[in-house]
């Protein structure tokens, strides 16, 4: 896949951590691309580096070497402030434990990313309400996270991820804390975001059933990436 057509392009990306006097390698010379509108699942055992790879793609961690191009921007060259602005405009986050603000209701949680835009209060509200309607929570807008089930909280998190219309949605074990039924609903929603809205999604998961919903699966083993496993999309 050419760099121009890719939403995400990694070139010779390596990552290591310094622990005491020792260098601990996590990712070694990763090269791969994710096409625009793709839905990729990253799988691998614990400690394989899949979350680190996701963090690098999302711009919340920096590579030790190599280039990461997301929508043609080399994010490894951005400083902290530029990177924060870039994340706000380009990345939607979905976390395993939802990471909602407990003191904000569903609408306010979804409104959060819009605080960093030039939108006025009324526009922010209407955008947030629209996003909540899309994830099927129109009747739960005033509810606080502790008044919602796990599945509903993850829906709020998905609404928060899509409300600013990002280029890329990264999901770290989005179904890891949910029962089977709720997990299925969340995966349906991710498929819908990908299929209907054309969002590029990168999802880290342990769950083979969840990975089956993606267009492609990549396995990570000891910091090295396996060949692309393309799946037939219905």
């Amino acid at each position: 896949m050419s760099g121009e057509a890719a939403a995400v392009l990694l070139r010779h990306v390596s990552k290591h951590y310094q622990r005491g006097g020792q260098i601990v390698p996590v990712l070694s010379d990763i090269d791969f691309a994710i096409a625009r509108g793709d839905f990729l699942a990253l799988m691998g055992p614990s400690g394989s580096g899949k979350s680190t790879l996701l963090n690098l793609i999302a711009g919340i961690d920096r590579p030790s070497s190599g280039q990461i191009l997301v929508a043609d921007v080399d994010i490894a060259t951005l400083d902290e402030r530029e990177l924060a602005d870039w994340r706000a405009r380009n990345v939607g986050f979905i976390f395993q434990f939802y990471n909602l603000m407990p003191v904000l209701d569903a609408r306010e949680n979804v409104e959060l990313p819009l605080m960093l835009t030039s939108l006025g209060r009324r526009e922010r509200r209407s955008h947030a309400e629209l996003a909540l309607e899309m994830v099927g929570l129109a009747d739960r807008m005033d509810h606080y996270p502790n008044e919602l089930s796990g599945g509903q909280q993850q829906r709020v998190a998905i609404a928060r991820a899509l409300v600013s219309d990002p280029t890329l949605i990264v999901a770290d074990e989005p179904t890891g804390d949910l029962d089977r039924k709720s997990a299925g609903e969340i995966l349906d929603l991710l498929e819908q975001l990908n299929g209907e809205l054309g969002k590029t999604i990168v999802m880290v998961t342990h769950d083979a059933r969840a990975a089956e919903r993606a267009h492609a699966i990549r396995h990570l083993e000891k910091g090295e990436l396996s060949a692309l496993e393309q799946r037939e999309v219905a």
Partner: protein
Amino acid sequence: MLVFLLRMSLKNALRHRLRAFLTLAGLTVAILSFGLLSTVVSAWYAGADAASDKRLITRNAISLVFPLPISYGERIRGAEGVTGISWANWFGGIYIEPKNFFPQFAIEPASYLQLYPEFVVKEDERAAFVRDRQGCLVGRKLANRYGWKVGDNIPIKGTIFPGTWNFVLRGIYDGRDSSTDQNQFFFHWDYLNERIKQTAPRRANNTGVFIVGIRDGSAAAQVSERVDKVFRNSLAETLTETEKAFQLSFVAMTETIVLAIQIVSYVVILIIMAVMANTMAMSARERTAEYATLKALGFGPGVVGLLILAESLLLCGIGAALGIALTWPTVRAIGGALDNIFPVFNVASTTVWQQLGAALLVALAAAAVPAQQAMRIRITEGLRAVS
């Protein structure tokens, strides 16, 4: 965005109800205690603060214990820059029992009241007091404390001047402003002197201090020098100083107590600072994942720091508001019970500013370290805190 963040900070501040309540209770008590202790210190200096720059006090240069001959009065009056003189003598008597302490002075009524315009007396009561040699004039607070009314007989048992002294209350003065001492008891120096002439003639015709009215407050040093020069090398040399300096010399006698009170008030603030810092550190630590999430969403470290600072400011602001609001009724209650010790016991505006300053200092100090840590935390490390 600022309003949104402030609302979020307020919600965060009240998130753990019990912790917030206990912290607020601690802050309220600390700010109230700080205000009360500051008021006690102010009360100590009330006499000096209420002093006029147009009055000097002349006393015996050796010690206040030694009197000055009354004949000095006319010679002081002759000094350049002096507009009037009066005199006063400490009496130190007991009303019914020793616990009923209040200051009593034998004065020359007409000239004394002329030099102290802050003692506001009705014209007829003033005339009656001046006319009656056995008459006395008391402050409103003192009269209220013992339920005295004009015309009442008041017996005072002398300690320095033995015997029972009977007075007739001829007037009650009010203070021109809140800093005026309304706890004093004045009577005729002539009445005292007549009795002394009979019982101890060698102690007669003396007074404790002269009050010297001057034309220009800025010339106090020169006039003092001129007065003292008149009596240099005499048997009773004088020491003349401003009324403020005279009052401060009494405060100096108890300076260590004042210093101890001030130190305690600062310790109270230090303790609440530690409590508040602990609260903020706990709160910030618990919310590490939330701050990391905000940073991941694109909020800068400044916003995270602002959230913590705003939370600390809100908590301290609420605590300070409650503490300050409670200061007035508490000072009124304590002032009522201690008005024989602190005749002027009011909440000064400087005290309120000090309370606000202390609350601000506590808020800033408590938020500094947690805010810095939250601002510095790496997103990946912070997100891990959730699991």
